[in-house]
């Protein structure tokens, strides 16, 4: 039974008011001395790469001036590590820049090919589990009972039916074993069938994410009446899940062996949630339990858009998406924050939009400031890496306007992410500590720049101060590029509390270890 020690007042004061979630945690007496915040990981992403000269800070490793693109993170400087110069030599037959780049970024594994999805044929599949799943398997106490993690996405519109760019998490960890969920699929390249690590598709609706995470809680504050209602709801739900497990057990006896994995996957999903229920029932919803009371439900009308459209050459839209995009993204982030605070999950992913997004923005294209244009389709107007990584462009020519448009959107995403991370910084968890201090947040992108280069790529790491991360640093490896996996291994140091994560992670894990290692100087074991 976990015991929480926290200060209710400081907790409430720390809530990021911008997201309008009132999370109330009941005061508890600490039963154990030395209880501390758990380690957490939040995987985040920004689409379509960046623009070197407008991204790179000026100055030294600890004494630098933030660039226009990074300026939104100024208030988080001490919680931030700015990195540049990652490039992978991973293979994905037929994989597109964004489409292979996205699974590459989070799995760091070679891919067997692309999905036959009826679209372009460049939809790269994951050749290994993503690091969120790797950590869930190997980092002690990272996986909570119940869902264990949540993946969220604020907008899912893509070009050509691709799954890859709208998913950061792959290969759910199978409980109790060394394996992850995979499946055989038809391949566009190289043809035939290939095995992919199954995409753990994100939730587009903050209300649904909320429902998935908080379904075992009831609204209201901590009163005997609410506690009683909570306990009843838990027990009733357990009865429902027990029924499912009985029927699945029976089905397993009737079906041949070839169906066992399928039935077991279903049963495992039910069992995980039931474990959480049982834990809550046993810890008691009445008189001394550790129930986290349900926060306010997000607006059910907020939901990321879906669709697939080849908009190149036709990038203008009648309206801008950015206000709604911001609202949806922040609603997702608020749910994740609340789930972290309530310690329902310790791993999550939050993605604004796919690398092949169709999110439109107004007023950011100087040549035509009154109109709205879609981000990724516009990025295709020029295909030159030297253009994107060259000198910043000024003026209102089409090329210069395009450059400024893309930089402005990169900065926009950074501003909104900074808002979110600030709320994590200010929010207290059940132990009275800053959520961000105990959460490592890799903020990654799937390509180097809009030319679809595999690098050099930008990456940032936020948070994790209490876990040993050393923020306030800038390192540029361009000219001596490093593989993306080095960012993950740096994160792994904080989660595994070791300076040798390669030794701690089994050699059977699929990520490419060639030339890999954590980045020195970014982590030290806390005293």
């Amino acid at each position, binding site marked *: 039974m976990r015991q929480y020690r926290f200060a209710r007042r400081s907790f409430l004061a720390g809530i990021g008011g911008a997201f309008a979630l009132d999370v109330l945690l009941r005061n508890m007496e600490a039963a154990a001395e030395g209880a501390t915040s758990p380690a957490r990981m939040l995987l985040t992403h920004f689409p379509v790469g960046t623009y070197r000269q407008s991204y790179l800070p000026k100055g030294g490793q600890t004494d630098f001036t933030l660039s226009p693109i990074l300026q939104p993170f100024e208030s988080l400087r001490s919680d931030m590590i700015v990195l540049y110069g990652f490039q992978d030599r991973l293979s994905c037959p037929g994989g597109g820049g964004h489409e292979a780049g996205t699974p590459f970024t989070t799995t760091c594994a070679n891919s067997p090919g692309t999905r036959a999805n009826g679209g372009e044929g460049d939809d790269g599949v994951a050749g290994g589990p993503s690091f969120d799943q790797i950590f869930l398997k190997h980092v002690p106490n990272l996986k909570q009972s119940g869902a264990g993690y949540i993946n969220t996405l604020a907008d899912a519109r893509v070009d050509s039916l691709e799954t890859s760019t709208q998913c950061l998490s792959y290969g759910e960890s199978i409980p109790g074993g060394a394996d992850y969920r995979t499946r055989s699929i038809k391949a566009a390249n190289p043809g035939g069938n290939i095995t992919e690590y199954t995409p753990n598709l994100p939730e587009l609706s903050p209300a649904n994410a909320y429902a998935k995470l908080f379904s075992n809680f009831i609204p209201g504050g901590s009163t005997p009446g609410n506690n009683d209602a909570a306990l009843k709801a838990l027990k009733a739900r357990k*009865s429902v899940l027990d029924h499912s497990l009985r029927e699945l057990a029976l089905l397993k006896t009737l079906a041949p062996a070839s169906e066992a994995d399928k039935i077991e996957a*279903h049963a*495992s999903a039910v069992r995980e949630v039931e474990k959480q229920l049982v834990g809550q029932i046993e810890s008691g919803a009445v008189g001394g339990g550790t129930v986290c009371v349900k926060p306010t439900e997000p607006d059910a009308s907020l939901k990321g858009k879906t669709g697939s459209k080849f908009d190149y050459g036709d990038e203008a839209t009648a309206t801008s998406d950015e206000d709604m995009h911001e609202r949806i993204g922040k609603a997702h982030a608020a749910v994740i924050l609340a789930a972290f605070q309530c310690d329902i999950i310790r791993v999550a992913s939050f993605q604004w939009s796919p690398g092949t997004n169709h999110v439109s923005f107004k007023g950011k294209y100087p040549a035509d400031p009154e109109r709205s244009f879609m981000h990724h389709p516009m990025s295709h107007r020029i295909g030159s890496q030297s253009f994107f990584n060259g000198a910043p462009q000024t003026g209102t020519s089409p090329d210069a306007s395009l450059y400024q448009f893309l930089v402005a959107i990169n900065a926009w995403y950074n501003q909104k992410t900074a808002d979110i991370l600030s709320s994590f910084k200010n929010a207290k968890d059940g132990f009275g500590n800053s959520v961000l201090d105990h959460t490592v947040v890799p903020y990654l992108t799937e390509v180097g720049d809009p030319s679809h280069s595999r690098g050099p790529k930008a990456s940032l790491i936020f948070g994790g101060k209490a876990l040993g991360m050393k923020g306030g640093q800038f390192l540029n490896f361009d000219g001596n590029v490093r593989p993306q996996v080095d960012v993950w291994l740096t994160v792994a140091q904080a989660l595994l509390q070791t300076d040798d994560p390669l030794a701690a992670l089994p050699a059977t894990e699929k990520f490419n270890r060639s030339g890999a290692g954590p980045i020195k100087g970014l982590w030290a074991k806390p005293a």
Partner: protein
Amino acid sequence: MIPGLKLASPTTMLACAGIVALALGCSASNGPKDSAAAQPPGSGGAGSVGGAAATGGVGVGPGTGGGATCEGGEIADNKRVVRLSFNQLSRTIHALLGDTFGTKVDADFEIGPESPTARTFPPLSSPQEGSSITTGLWQKVDLIASAAGGYALANLGQLTGCGAAPTDACAEAFVRAFAEKAYRRPLTAAEATSIVQVYTEVKGIYGTIPEAVQHSVYAIMQSPQLLYRTELGEAKDQAGPLTPYELASSLSYFLSDAPPDAELLTAAAQNKLSASADITAQVDRLLATPAARKNLESALFSYFQVDNLATVKIDDPAFTSGTQAKPYTGVRESAYHEVELFLANTLWSGPLTGLLTSKKSWVNSTLSGLYGVTLSAAGDESQFVETTLPDNRSGLLTQVGFLASNSRPDLPSVVARGLVVNKAMLCQTNPTFPTDPALVAKIEEAGTKLASVSERERAEYRGSTAPCSGCHRAFDAYGLALDRYDIVGRYRTMDPQGRPIDASVTLPALFNNEVAADAVAMESKIAQNPGFPACFGKNMLNWALAEGSQLTPTSCATQAVVSGFNESDKSLSSLLRAVAISKAFTHRNAGVSQ
């Protein structure tokens, strides 16, 4: 804006257009050799049309229509449990809890016929679906089931028929009956016990009947008996037929994507689904319903990837898009709807070959100029009139919708169109794009050399130059025959450079290298080739089996269906009947026991 449009993407060939135009070479080792040898037995399942997906089997050439050289047994699959696709779950929810609640669930959870993934062919191959209910899928299903429980609580009297203050007896009776309806068969004793246990436990927790009903409905809606349909038969560890109730579910979900109706369940109860005549009677009954016809038309619409029309980029001002208020002022939307009407009117009357040879289509004023026809009835652009096509057109392959959705933005793509015909109509194995850097460099070099020659000259180069010829001889001819239709689908006799376009082609070896004078003649020859019904037989069987099957046109299971089809009037309905009575559909092998 295309009404009801869900999916949109270019074909693989279109998106690889830059390479396709230069795709003059491929390794001979990637060529479409005998897939029965190249692939594992029974491989080459249903995958979607297009591109470099090396799926599908060898087309059956002339004179090889029978089962003499078929692979595998007539029973295609082992006993199994098959999860309902989200569209099937949607239809099931509508049937159980009504359209008001069903429509809300469709919208809240993005399932149902308007969802982005509703029409993958076959459905469970979509990444949003999959054959297993893993965590993410289960969470969604659980939320839906919980919502159903909430709906039951809020509409207790109306749903249960027990009034606002139900008695235990009435409520329990409702729960059992609801479970039976949801599971699509009578409950076993153990199942009845289990669901009543939920009722009793929850009543004990809350002390009230409404919450007990709520959670019973919740439990039923997330039961494996609802979420999967079983194909286990009567006797464990023995091959044999599906049970009557299993067959009822299989038939209904195959044809209508919906649970079995009362009549089908009654037939199951009376064990009147074992004889072929009984099954075909049900098939005919269901095929007469709008739901089944719409379901199958939509499946074929997706199969031919006409969905691409919504998003294909065509650099020609004549390829207009309509508005929300007047969609059919646009060529894009009109062509889309023309294909919908063509399928609806052609699939259910006359032979299946009408897909290729019918001289009728349904054209509006927006399209009439492109076809060079005069409509027989006046009206605005929303009126689609049955029209006889001119001599230079027949069937689907010469429709604006098919042609435009398989064009590059600037040029019709001989290779793209050829590959689509090769796979969609004949289930041939399309080669993958070469990835060898040296070969790609050669391709680019040849592309530069041939940049200014005609499409025919390029095709002739590919057909006569190793290693290109190893692959391109198998499919370029189809695309070349269609080269007289430009990127919008207009008929032309000259290319943009003023060179005459010769539409006659020498068809591949599958046709004994016969000559077709033009696209219409080519379509006629495809229609007569045994590979065409074998391809459709394979596809319809894989659609019916939903997942897992790796049938090819030369599988014995497919050949059994095709034999039945060949002895019929050769309509789609007959093909579907042949599927429904086939051993592949009605029987399962034992599989390895636990």
